């Protein structure tokens, strides 16, 4: 094993987002191949429609329909699309001011002729996705539309924002990939666990032994480095009986979740107690780790059979 550990960490969740009336109308509209904007008190038309006026802060709600054609206000050529982006071949990011709108919408422009075919001021139109569900990705992308003439003819028209079966929420999956590295102190602790040893670190200043070590003594703010083997036996300082099954935990309830002060450690760590009926676990119970095959964190702790520790001996560790 390398001295300092590393492993992938995937942070992924499908967020459920409710929309509110303005965003609901916009995304429902996209599903029906309609692009809506919102009109401000001073007559500007904002596309995409936002809920609150960026200038006056007023709440907005007067919806209008704008054209499916527009003008590129700025662009950037993306020759290497990344995960989740609208197109999987090289494309241009564009801000597009749709005809009838006063502000621009961010999206992708499919430009098969490459970056030399894209310029600010070029005319584009919406290309709809085949399957539309009421999301900003219902616009698959924009495409060049040099035939289209600009602007003036496209006065926005009032729209009541009502659609049959409106979209009121979206599910927004998000995945980020990280490489997690626990650092020097925790790596050393994990290496020892693999050999069924519990190794902590002593603070050079206050002499307290931290298990698991975190690299710093949190009260002195200095690095800990002197390694100290503790346990394996310890004392249950306090506990609770878990009667509710937690998701992604394959443990039958009820079971006991305890704080355990290993002999030689100056604070308790957490573990499950087994090898004894749950309702017979008590504060002061003496326990030892039960190791899983192949090492790693103890699977649980079981009674050693020693007499219970006296409350006075561990009350400072509560």
């Amino acid at each position, binding site marked *: 094993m390398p*001295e*300092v550990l590393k492993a992938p*960490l995937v942070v992924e969740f499908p*967020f459920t*987002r409710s929309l509110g009336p303005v*965003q609901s109308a*916009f*995304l429902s509209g996209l599903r029906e191949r309609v692009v809506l904007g919102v009109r401000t008190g001073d007559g500007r038309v*904002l596309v*995409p429609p*936002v809920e609150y006026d*960026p*200038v006056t802060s007023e709440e907005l709600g007067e919806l209008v329909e704008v054209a499916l054609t527009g003008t590129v206000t*700025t662009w*950037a*050529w*993306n*020759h290497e699309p*990344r*995960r*989740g*982006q*609208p197109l999987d071949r090289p494309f241009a*990011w564009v*801000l597009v*001011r749709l005809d009838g709108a*006063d*502000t*621009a*919408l*961010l*999206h*992708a422009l499919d430009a098969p002729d490459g970056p030399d075919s894209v310029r*600010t001021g070029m005319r584009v139109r919406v290309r709809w996705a085949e399957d539309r569900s009421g*999301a*900003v*990705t219902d616009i698959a992308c924009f495409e060049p539309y040099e035939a289209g003439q600009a602007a003036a003819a496209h006065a926005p028209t009032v729209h009541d924002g009502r659609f049959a079966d409106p979209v009121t929420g*979206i599910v*927004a999956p998000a995945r*980020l*990939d*990280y*490489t*997690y*590295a*626990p*650092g*020097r*102190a*925790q790596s050393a602790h994990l290496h020892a666990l693999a050999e069924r040893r519990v190794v902590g670190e002593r603070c050079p200043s206050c002499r307290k032994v931290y298990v698991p070590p*975190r*690299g*710093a*003594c*949190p*009260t*002195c*703010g*200095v*690095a800990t480095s002197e390694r100290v083997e503790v346990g394996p036996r310890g004392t249950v300082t306090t506990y609770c009986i878990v009667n509710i099954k937690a998701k992604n935990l394959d443990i039958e309830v009820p079971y006991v979740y305890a704080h355990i002060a290993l002999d030689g450690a100056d604070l308790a760590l957490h573990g499950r107690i087994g090898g004894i009926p749950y309702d017979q676990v008590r504060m002061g119970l003496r326990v030892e780790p039960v190791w899983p095959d192949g090492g790693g964190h103890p699977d649980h702790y079981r009674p050693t059979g020693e007499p219970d520790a006296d409350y006075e001996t561990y009350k400072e560790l509560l």
Partner: protein
Amino acid sequence: MPAPMPTSGAAPRSVPRPLRDIAVVAFAQTDHLRTSDELSEVEMLMPVLHRVLAQTGLRTGDIGFTCSGSSDYLAGRAFSFTMALDGVGAWPPISESHVEMDGAWALYEAWTKLLTGDADTALVYAYGKSSPGSVRDVLTRQLDPYYLAPLWPDSVALAALQAQALIDAGDTDEPALAAVASRNRASAAGNPHAQLRGPVPQGDYVVRPLRIGDCPPVGDGAAAVVLAAGERARDLCERPAWIRGIDHRVEAHGLGVRDLTDSPSARLAAERAGAFERPVDTAELHAPFSSQEVVLRKALRLDDRVHVNPSGGALAAHPIMAAGLIRIGEAAERIRRGDSDRALAHATSGPCLQQNLVAVLEGDPR
């Protein structure tokens, strides 16, 4: 159509003189590296805290207020700041706060705390480890979650849209951007902490018109500053960098409602911080992309007489969440050394310079 920048309140008040004089009296930072994966966040941060305190002779227990800036999203761990606190040694308990913002805003919070008179000294720190994740993708999670985030437009793409707008407006061109990049990295040759020191080829497009050279390095780092009020500052530092003014402003979120070639929020913050009252000799700008320096120079009215980014700026080292605080620290450091008498420091947050902070620092007259 760009939205005009409203001013705060009905009639802007004149810039008030702060209740107390507060100065940066110490600054320390890590060497900024592409990766620091042998170290946990606290292991990376702690030596910086020790160094900044050592400069003043203070210990944690002597500090009146502590404030930090960091983001859970960078390394993918909720509550990462709670473990970083281990490096401070918060025992006995300390008066402490945290912003989920660049450390420059943590410094702002500490500055207000010192102004109230509730504390005379403050420790401010910030750290960021970008190496565990793909920072271009991580930053997409900053965007409006309904209309923008589902498209995953990465941070370079958004900066590139801004750069193209500048080119279209005639404010810059690709050779000029390359010159900004090379000037910053040449300055970084004198900065032992910088990640990129000396010339870097402009290279290929990342997202056109931005090339590799126009983009900041991705890396890990931490920084810390000590603030002190009044006479306490003079006790702790030979030449304190007095904060003559500090202010920050945010703009609308939507890129399509903003004029990307301008930074009205940076200009307003500078005005409120008193930056335009007298010229500065030095400016440390938090411009992660070469094109953003063009925007900021214009908004902040910095001409060729101002020494911009003597440290090499964010193009030479860009530990996200600490990079803004480092600008303040670098400016203060030049004042302490006597290389500057009046400096402007700037920090930014959000896509295309959405939020900006400006501090004006001065040394005592010589």
